[in-house]
């Protein structure tokens, strides 16, 4: 295990406060890291006294919630906390609402760091246990949002890449692959190159219309590679593989490079909650912008080809049993191919008789909300221009406050009246419904669209 901490007399100039955009500084930084390996999670150890100090580069975009909280006149924090929660929820809505082209059929290799650095206890209970727990939640949520996607799992242990789970579209199989903790016991050094090469070879045969992604959860500050990792990076670029890294310790130049050049996301987890946030940011299908960026020879947006698909009829388990075409077994339940009326056991699949791709339409429909997002509601600032304002929320019929709240500051798109208006149907909604409609339902109750 490398020396973790040099101490608090650490020179602030060399590592911590540089802008990552500055190339010269960057080089110096990488060199410093190679020698010292010292920039660990010093923030955690340095105590409250140093809180004013300028943060690390990777912390720059992370607001410390405790710095922004202010007590109200009565000395209570409740208003401030509620305000903060509401603001955090609304920030998500400020993302552009235009239709972006997204890749829906995704292929992801999840690379787990199983090196001895994962036994560190800076995240409770250990980095390793936390990673397994979040990885499970990630997989469940990922399949929920990308029902036609596939996930494979590769581990980094003892300097080798290790295939833990084959690429599959069945969430249960993926979860089973990482269910046995004792088989994944961390050991030795990680090798980023070996793991990425293994992931790359797994995905080399995939059709062009699907996305190829690698998500690395990386706890170590070193990588023990057999060759030049920049060659690996080049070949990933050529294969249009998008690499995202969630680092648990500190920023590494090579990780940042892998992500930036391939169009992925890079983040350093500051605490348990932030770790989860970073990981879950990778769940929504990425906009197909990486294609344009790599653009070596290939056109920026290749014309999408259409696939013929059939939507089957499901037979109940009370129907008369018949032989299925996939296993030749006598079964009651099953799905009927719409073209040749053959009976298959499970969808999605290709019909064994006529070769038609059979999918259940709910599988497809799960991703439609990415294509047709609900327009962001506008905060209503005053009711002067509304002749007869509705007394209650259009969604849940909760009555609105009559008086504008005084505590809320109106700069961040928060409505002092708690009203948010749909730009299309001009109905008012409360904060809860606003968030619920945009995050969960993806359909405005007023317009019905």
């Amino acid at each position: 295990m490398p020396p973790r901490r040099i101490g608090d007399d650490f020179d602030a100039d060399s590592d911590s406060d540089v802008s990552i955009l500055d190339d010269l500084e960057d080089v110096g930084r990488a060199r410093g890291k190679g020698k010292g390996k010292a920039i660990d999670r010093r923030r955690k150890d340095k105590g409250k006294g140093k809180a004013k100090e300028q943060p690390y580069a990777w912390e720059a975009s992370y607001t410390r919630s405790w710095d922004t909280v202010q007590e109200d006149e009565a000395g209570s924090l409740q208003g401030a906390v509620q305000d903060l929660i509401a603001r955090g929820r609304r920030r998500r809505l400020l993302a552009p609402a235009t239709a972006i082209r997204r890749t829906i059929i995704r292929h992801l290799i999840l690379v787990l760091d199983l090196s001895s650095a994962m036994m560190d206890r800076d995240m409770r209970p250990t980095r390793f246990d936390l990673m397994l727990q979040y990885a499970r939640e990630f997989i469940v949520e990922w399949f929920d949002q990308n029902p036609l996607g596939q996930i494979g799992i590769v581990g980094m242990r003892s300097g080798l890449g290790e295939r833990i789970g084959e690429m599959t579209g069945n969430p249960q199989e993926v979860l089973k692959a990482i269910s046995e903790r004792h088989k994944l016991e961390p050991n030795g050094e990680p090798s980023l190159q070996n793991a990425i090469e293994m992931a790359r070879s797994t995905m080399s045969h995939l059709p062009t219309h699907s996305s190829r992604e690698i998500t690395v959860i990386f706890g170590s500050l070193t990588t023990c590679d057999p060759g030049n990792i920049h060659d690996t990076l080049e070949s990933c670029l050529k294969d249009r593989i998008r690499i995202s890294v969630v680092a648990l310790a500190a920023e590494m130049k090579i990780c940042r490079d892998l992500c930036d050049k391939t169009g992925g996301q890079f983040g350093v987890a500051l605490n348990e909650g932030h770790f989860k946030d970073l990981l879950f940011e990778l769940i929504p299908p990425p906009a197909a912008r990486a294609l344009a960026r790599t653009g070596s020879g290939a056109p920026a947006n290749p014309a999408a080809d259409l696939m013929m698909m059939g939507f089957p009829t499901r037979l109940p388990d009370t129907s008369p049993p018949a032989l299925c075409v996939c296993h030749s077994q006598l079964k009651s339940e099953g799905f009927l191919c719409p073209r040749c009326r053959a009976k298959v056991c499970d969808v999605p699949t290709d019909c064994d008789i006529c070769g038609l791709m059979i999918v259940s339409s709910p599988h497809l429909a799960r991703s439609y909300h990415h294509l047709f997002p609900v327009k962001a509601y506008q905060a209503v600032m005053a009711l002067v221009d509304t002749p007869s304002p509705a007394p209650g929320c259009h969604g849940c019929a909760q009555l609105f406050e009559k008086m504008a709240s005084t505590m809320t500051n109106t700069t961040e798109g928060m409505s002092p009246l708690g009203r948010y208006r749909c730009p299309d149907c001009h109905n008012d909604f409360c904060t809860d419904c606003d968030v619920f409609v945009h995050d969960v339902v993806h359909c405005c109750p007023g317009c019905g669209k």
Partner: protein
Amino acid sequence: MDKASHLSVVIDLSPTQWHLCSQSSNPYPLTLQSFLSQLLAFFNSHIACKDENTLAVFGAFPGKSVLLYSSTTIAAEEHSVNADANTYRPFKVLDSTIMGSIRNQLEALELLEAEAPIGLVGAITKSLCYINRLTIPSSSTTPAEEKQAPLDPRILIFSVSPDQSPSYIPIMNSIFSAQKLKVTIDVCKIYGPDSVFLQQAAHLTGGSYLHLNRPDAVLQYLTMSFLPPPGIRQLLSVPTQDKIDFRAACFCHKKIVDIGFVCSVCLSIFCNPVPVCSTCR
């Protein structure tokens, strides 16, 4: 029934379809009046089952959707109801509120509006918003009125209109959010052809879809299959669907198709092969 349960009801109140349904040429005609009186009996038995049971009724009218009654916001209107020595007061309040608001809404309908597509999606999404507010103790309610969230929330949809294909995506989105909220959607199809979308809704959320053979006996169906909450229904044998159609509506002509052409990037469905996907271009 040891746990309190919440029931949201969505009633399809299309004047045209109800008129067709009440025609005497049907084998078993059912008029809106007789349906509503049977429905009120069902509502009364729901709130009578347990004191904490809650109820919200949404009406889907042509072109709009309205909250007709909810047991949480009723306190203000309670005084306007005349006391009646022979009726249990909550029943009286419930019955007169629902009948009154349905009458108001139907009278307010213009002749032209009556042909507008039914606001079923709006009613379903509103009931989801309502359930969302009940299940998540929100920041806007005061702690005093924060009580035990009703378990087993469910939505019961009474449908008389045929499917409208433009509402395919919104209905599918509502189904997925119902799955997330663990809401069961039950469908009672009173008149008209089977609804593909509502069949999928019931199937995906674990509810039951019932196409009534004898619409005039709707109360019997209601008490036997929809009165017990989903938790208890596992112990009873509730009628199941025989076939579920997993067809979808295409994006270009909103036709319901069983074999479609799907864009490999955004998964939009088309009924004819098109050179360029119109959704993601």
